[in-house]
């Protein structure tokens, strides 16, 4: 029997019951990666030796009777989390050979929880993209259909989990980069409240929007991972100091009495029919479980893409100024002078989409345009957050689609950046408002998964996870796997 799609709970029992060793489990995933990943391209770096030596050490601990929920569980990391001594590229030529001298807090927290790190997953360069076609290390294929994109920017993480090349993976989400690929690949992925997971060592795209989270096969697996990743960190000023809820216990809470908001305007134009149907089915399913649905309005939601495409590039334009060829990363050959070093290192080191966003962000912050663009976008951001806070007076969470369509074809949107940006129309507002949001599988259309999204109030990750977990007790969308993809 194949173990690559087993839940963490099942693997936990197998490891604890010595039905399998951590080394055997790790070798199983490594050999699948070696055999199958050349067609998916979901990993940039596979850490064979390190994974096996960690597994050997963990086997000793298991033999000695040590027990922990994630001890010996092989996972993958988005290649935007710094890993000490292990190449961390952010999908960019700029960092193609960069080996950080320290670990990200998320990485360190997971390692402390006993996971085995298989390697670093492909992504859109500096997490800028919705298809994983913007990677210096090549596009990633969707294991459900290799003509399709896995979504982005955490496309490699999504493809690796969906393809059974790891048990779960970490992702980051600035405008939907965990949720959209989770939807495209049939996964459960949660973007926690801004500040729930430390950003230390997570290469910055847009600092006020970036948030790390897990991408997994189920809410139960995601809960276990998030529990380990999250928590206070004095190295990140914006990291929340409140303690982490025991998500894996709280997911058992019943849905009875929960009020879920629906925004009619989000279900009208541009949403594919199959997703609209899945949405209706899900609503009925959740009603059966005891939830009630309330229609709400988010007055300024349609401005979220506009506000996002000012704020995110503006912050990115400053965050990416440190890639100047001086202290680390790519430096052009034989620079004639300092100016030449700057220009060529940045021109050659960054891909087109990254440069485009730096230019947009620089423009939005420049003299004469700052008020009209950046400041206005920040005001709109407050209005968008205000709408949500008001809505949460009436409802416990809000159900929306994650994406307007299922996974699109490779190359379909590469010529039209704006069409690509509109992929994130449902996901962006949660980042602007700093709210937790989860995407979960809720249907299939033409062999491709459909994802729906729940958005909750600040720090109500447990509510979202338990809702999805209850839904997953009565549905089997999350048990479907692309078994014939290889």
């Amino acid at each position, binding site marked *: 029997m194949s173990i690559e799609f087993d839940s963490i709970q099942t693997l936990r029992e197998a490891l604890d019951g010595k039905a399998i060793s951590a080394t055997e489990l790790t070798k199983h995933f490594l050999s699948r990666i070696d055999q199958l990943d050349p067609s998916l391209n979901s990993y940039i770096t596979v850490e064979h030796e390190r994974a096996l030596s960690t597994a050997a050490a963990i086997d000793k601990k298991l033999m000695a009777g040590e027990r922990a929920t994630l001890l010996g569980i092989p996972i993958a990391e988005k290649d935007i989390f710094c890993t000490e001594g292990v190449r961390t590229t952010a999908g960019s030529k700029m960092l193609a050979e*960069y*080996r950080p*001298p320290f670990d990200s807090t998320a990485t360190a927290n997971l390692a402390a929880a006993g996971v085995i790190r298989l390697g670093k997953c492909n992504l859109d360069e500096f997490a800028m993209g919705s298809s994983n076609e913007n990677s210096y290390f090549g596009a990633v294929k969707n294991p459900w259909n290799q003509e399709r994109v896995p979504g982005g920017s955490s496309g490699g993480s999504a493809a690796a989990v969906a393809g059974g090349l790891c048990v779960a993976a970490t992702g980051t989400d600035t405008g939907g980069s965990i949720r959209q690929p989770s939807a495209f690949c049939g996964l459960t992925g949660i973007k926690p409240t*801004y*500040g729930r997971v430390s950003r230390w060592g997570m290469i910055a795209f847009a600092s*006020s929007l970036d948030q790390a989270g897990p991408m997994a096969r189920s809410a139960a697996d995601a809960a276990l991972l998030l529990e380990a990743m999250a928590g206070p960190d*004095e190295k990140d*000023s*914006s990291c*929340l*100091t409140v303690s982490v809820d025991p998500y894996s216990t709280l997911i058992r809470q019943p849905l009875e009495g929960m009020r879920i908001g629906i925004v009619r305007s989000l279900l009208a134009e541009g949403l594919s029919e199959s997703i609209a149907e899945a949405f209706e089915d899900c609503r009925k399913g959740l009603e059966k479980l005891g939830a009630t649905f309330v229609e709400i309005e988010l007055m300024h939601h349609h*401005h979220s*893409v*506009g*506000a996002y*495409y000012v704020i995110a590039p503006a912050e990115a334009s400053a965050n990416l*100024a440190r890639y*100047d*060829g*001086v*202290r*680390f990363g790519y*430096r052009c050959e034989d620079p004639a*002078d*300092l100016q*030449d*070093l*700057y*220009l060529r290192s*940045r*021109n050659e080191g*960054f891909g087109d989409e990254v*440069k*485009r966003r730096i*230019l*947009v962000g*620089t*423009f*939005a912050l*420049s003299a004469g*345009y700052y008020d*009209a*663009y950046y400041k*206005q*976008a*920040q*005001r*709109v*951001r*407050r*209005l968008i*957050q205000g709408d949500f806070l008001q809505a949460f007076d009436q409802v416990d969470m809000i159900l929306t689609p994650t994406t307007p369509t299922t996974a699109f074809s490779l190359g379909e949107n590469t010529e039209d*950046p*704006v069409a690509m*940006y509109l992929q994130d129309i449902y996901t962006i507002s949660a*980042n*602007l*408002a*700093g709210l937790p949001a989860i995407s979960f599988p809720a249907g299939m259309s033409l062999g491709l998964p459909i994802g729906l999204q729940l958005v909750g109030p*600040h720090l109500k990750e447990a509510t979202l996870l338990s809702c999805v977990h209850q839904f997953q007790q009565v549905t089997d969308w999350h048990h479907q796997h692309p078994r014939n993809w290889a």
Partner: protein
Amino acid sequence: MGHQIDDPTLDRVAQLAQLSVPGQDREAVKTALNDVLTLVNGLQSLDTSGVEPMAHPLSIQQPLRSDQVTESDHSGAIPHFAPSHADHYFLVPRVIE
């Protein structure tokens, strides 16, 4: 209505960002940037008078560190990641002030 990125604006912005846009790419880049501006120009129509700009999604306070030296000497790591270095200095082409 909204602003458009013309050639002088593109040059100024590229210079600020230390990027250059070669001739053959200029039209494509300008089109792409203007498409983005069209997307975001919708914001301008919104009346936001009296709305405080939101720089941060959390309304929490900056935690303060106590004034203690907690870092040790990391200069030995420089050769592992610096593109050009000597004696623990980072090197760049000579800058004339």
